[in-house]
């Protein structure tokens, strides 16, 4: 067996936390930060190397590692294909930026915070790479714990309420998924995803199993009406926590929908597509309208996240090439843009200690550099052509249009609404006259902040103009995935007759 690159990616951050654990924290905590940064950066480099050696033309799983774990029952099996690799890179890309951003936000127990972030990184990479349902479940649920701690310990004033709400919601959904995984083992005799792809799951169980998986993914996405934990969690979480939550945690569900709901239960997916369409469209319109009326910046962006993830679920269940590729693209794009928007809110929150929109206004006069990056991400969230946001949304809607006109028409209205709430937010915060005295002494972005925000802004714009780099990676896998899906559906239909 070759060098186990995927396992290395998963384990490296955890190994790093052991180092962190034994470092004595000095006054300024610099050494801790540098170690954490070093670890996350080496993981980023490793993942970029993985991307480099990844074979675009090969549709099957690559770098697969398969080890016996629990004798004869469960194997530790990991591997990647075109669908998962981008999420791995998104994770390793976002985490170093999170580590860099803790300078201002985390006032106490910095070491513990960084350890939580790194453990989180391990778990999330694990989610995107695991090819065994049990392994997936462990990583998927494990991710809850560090996030729960991040909100509960370093959060704002209502942190305990939010942390429990988050935990309750996600756990309730996941319990059903665990039951489903166990029953899949009883039905099919294995939890190995690639094997399950080949043998398929008996149709008569598919609907129930699909619903069980759905209950978990829908909460994590989050879909309407189980989205109410997200605004609370975001508002209370520290900036770095919000970034992780929005950029990566939400993507686990989208990824899960593609890999497991579509992949394992094609017949059920086909059956439940209308349900997803309706919930997604409600999410898009409903949360956009709610976002319009928010008074808290973080809450506004949290609601806009729900709307954007509504596009993602919509695109996935169009089950067209454009729809699914658009969804993956939208998830990457949302990972960059929402992360950046939360950081943007964090920037002014650190300086002025309020997130209420009405406490701001006219920032452009004293923070021009901030105004520029904030504008870039605002436009990205609006879905302006030339940013990644456009390509995701447009492809999703294009895919949707091929399946259902009415859904596409209503969902497209969301594009108007997103422009309304984002531009209105920007206008109220950044434009206008600088009247309030406490704002007049704010300082513009520091070098550190400029670096973080521009490293998110550049890919947002670059991939908006040249998305081909990403499409090249996912194209073959998606084509293959869809062929498999079509094949399964057709066998089902022919069996039925």
């Amino acid at each position, binding site marked *: 067996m070759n060098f186990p690159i995927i396992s290395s990616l998963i384990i490296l951050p955890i190994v790093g936390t052991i180092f962190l654990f034994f470092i004595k924290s000095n006054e300024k905590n610099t050494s801790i930060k540098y170690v954490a940064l070093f670890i996350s950066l080496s993981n980023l480099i490793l993942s970029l190397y993985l991307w480099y050696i990844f074979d675009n033309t090969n549709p099957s799983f690559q770098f697969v590692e398969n080890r016996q774990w629990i004798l004869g029952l469960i194997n530790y099996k990991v591997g990647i294909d075109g669908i998962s690799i981008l999420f791995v890179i998104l994770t390793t890309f976002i985490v170093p930026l999170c580590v860099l951003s803790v300078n201002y936000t985390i006032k106490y127990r910095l070491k513990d915070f960084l350890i939580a972030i790194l453990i989180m990184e391990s778990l999330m990479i694990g989610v995107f790479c695991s090819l065994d349902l049990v392994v997936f479940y462990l990583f998927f649920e494990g991710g809850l714990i560090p996030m729960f701690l991040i909100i509960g310990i370093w959060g704002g004033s209502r942190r305990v309420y939010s942390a*429990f*709400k988050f935990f*309750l*919601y996600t756990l309730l959904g996941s319990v059903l998924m665990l039951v489903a995984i166990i029953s899949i083992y009883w039905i099919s005799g294995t939890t190995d995803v690639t094997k399950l792809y080949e043998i398929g799951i008996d149709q008569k169980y598919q609907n129930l199993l699909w619903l069980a998986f759905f209950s978990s993914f829908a909460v994590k996405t989050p879909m309407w*009406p*189980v989205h*109410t*934990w997200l605004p609370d969690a975001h508002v209370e979480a520290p900036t770095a926590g919000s970034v992780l939550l929005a950029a990566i945690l939400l993507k686990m569900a989208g990824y899960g929908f593609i890999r497991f709901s579509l992949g394992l239960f094609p017949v059920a997916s086909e059956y439940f597509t209308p349900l997803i369409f309706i919930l997604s469209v409600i999410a898009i319109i*409903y949360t956009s*309208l*709610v*976002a*319009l*009326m*928010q008074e808290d910046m973080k809450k506004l962006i949290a609601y806009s996240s729900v709307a954007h993830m509504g596009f993602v679920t919509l695109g996935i269940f169009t089950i*067209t*090439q*454009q729809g699914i*590729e*658009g969804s993956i693209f939208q998830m990457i794009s949302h990972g960059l843009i929402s992360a950046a928007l939360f950081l943007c809110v964090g920037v002014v929150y650190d300086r002025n200690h309020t997130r209420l929109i009405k406490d701001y206004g*006219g920032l*452009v*006069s004293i923070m021009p550099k901030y105004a520029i990056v904030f504008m870039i991400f605002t*436009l990205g969230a609006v879905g*302006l*052509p*030339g940013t990644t946001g*456009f*390509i995701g949304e*447009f*492809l999703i*809607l*294009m895919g949707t*249009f*091929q399946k259902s*006109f*009415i859904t*596409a*028409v209503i969902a*497209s*209205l969301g*594009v*108007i*609404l997103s*422009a*309304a709430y984002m*531009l*209105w937010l920007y*206008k109220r915060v*950044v*434009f*206008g*006259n600088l009247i309030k005295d406490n704002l007049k002494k704010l300082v513009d972005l520091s070098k550190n902040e400029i670096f973080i925000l521009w490293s998110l802004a550049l890919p947002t714009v670059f991939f908006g*103009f*040249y*998305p*081909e780099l990403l*499409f090249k990676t996912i*194209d073959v896998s998606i*084509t293959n995935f869809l062929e498999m899906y079509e094949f399964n559906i057709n066998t089902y239909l022919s069996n039925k007759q």
Partner: protein
Amino acid sequence: MEYLIVFLPLIGAIISVFFGNKFGSKYSELLTSILVGISAILSLIVFFNVIYHNYESNIIVAKWIYSGNLQVNWSIKIDALSSVMLVVVTLVSSLVHVYSIGYMSHDPHKPRFMAYLSLFTFSMLALVTSDNFLQLFFGWEGVGVCSYFLIGFWFKKESANAAAIKAFLVNRVGDFGFALGIFLIFYIFGTVNYDEVFTQIPPIANEKINFLNLNIGSVDLICFLLFIGAMGKSAQFILHTWLPDAMEGPTPVSALIHAATMVTAGVFLVVRCSPIYEYSPSILTFITFIGMITALFAASVAVVQNDIKKIIAYSTCSQLGYMFFATGVGAYNIAMFHLFTHAFFKALLFLGSGSVIHSFNNQQDINQMGGVWKKIPLTYFLMIIGTLALTGFPLLSGFYSKDAIIEFAYLHGTSVGYMAAIVGIFTAFLTSIYSWRLIFKTFHGKYNNKDIEINKIHESPYVMTVPLIVLAIGSIVVGFVFKNLFLDFDNFWKNSIFLLNPLSQEHPPFWFLILTPTLVTLSIPISYLIFIKYSKVSDYLAESNKPLYLFLKNKWYFDEVYEYSIINPCKKIGSYFWRGVDGLVIDKFGPDGISKLIKIFSLKAVKFQSGYIYQYAFIMLLGFSLILTILIIN
């Protein structure tokens, strides 16, 4: 060369935005102006190449989106149609760049302003040189966002910010239709490239599609959806409300974006898609009607407005209406002709009004002006030329294009065509009235401004007047010079405009030909008499027809209707969903409810653990005897 035309403005914008403040604003002004200037010269070369050497090309710059069978490239397509647009865009843009150096000389954010202008130019060029609908959409939204930046350029002004957002949102409504149109095109044809789509149109011309329970022709539907986009961008009736408000932006912006280039993108779209529109007579009729209504409506409102820029804005709206009903009656080339001439005289009028506003220290109300023609003779003279050209005074550029539109509407031979011709003539008369009203109230009569002494009114610097002179020359000659070119299908337009039935070669009767010029000429003394000599007459008219006057003054109450019917309900529903549904329903019965239930139950459960041994013993005894009983019964 094509690369340079498109990318020089972008380079200028990037340098100006990132290094403008380092090198000083002078450099970024010069740099952007020179780069756009070069781009303009190259565009002229391309234009003449197209005229004389039948030059055509389609350059693929890079791959853009390749997803399954959707394959879109970044491209630069040059044909007769795009070469005309190239000339209009780069020429006006370069003149506006130069003019802005003077107009914005007191503004601290000049590099940013120049960067926006150049960025706009780039987006507009990307729009016109596209060979597919998606890049067109990129340019379409790109110019929209630049327009948003520029309208809101004076970010401290509350009204400017509101106008900027309004412009963006109304355009988004249009873009919503446009995007659906593109989806439908992709759904039917599996491609979004012009050529591939256009060749597949004739076979499906009569096919129907079931869309939202309506059974309509698929070509009709495509045309309708695309036209919604065009209505938004070109400020046509129903979606026009953003254009007058957009005048909050600096005047050079109004000249470039809201007169000469961006707002004509809708016309360009319809002309570009002539191979589709030709197969949809019903939508062409619809376009004719919308064009007619817009032309008439905007002109009627313009008559009673007092803001110099708003009058010209409504006039733009009205002229765009002309262009649309020209396309509606199948005279795409004439629409392009009017677009071409209009760019010159309308940019001239805007920049001229900018010069007036500059002289009056940012005063825009024409009731606060008057009697200054001797003080600013050059501006006065140039504004007269612009007005003559706009109203279609014989031998100036507007005369050729506007009369051609009215003639072709007449020659269309249908009742819609006749109606369009009548509306066209009447609107031409109204146009003339409000344009001369503007001139007379601004330059003649009594001096009405109380803030500034008349002697302080001064002429603008050369950097502002020279571009005006160039535009004035253009306004005089382009109609006459290019008249034949724009009528020439065999040698000029060729494939870039498609006609199902060739345009009529006949000539309308002589009385019809002289009708418009006569009305236009007569209106000069009429408006002089009404608005200057016997200004009581106009007051009396306003007073005696108060409801009508107010109706026009308030722009047919469109803003108010939208406010009450769309914006407020949206806000209300939003807060209802948030506080009502999210807070009171989902949370109450969801997580909060569950945790409350658990709490209640656990409080009850707590009571079991009282700590008294005798209670535990009693329960154990009870349980034991229960089990025993069951066992015995079994």
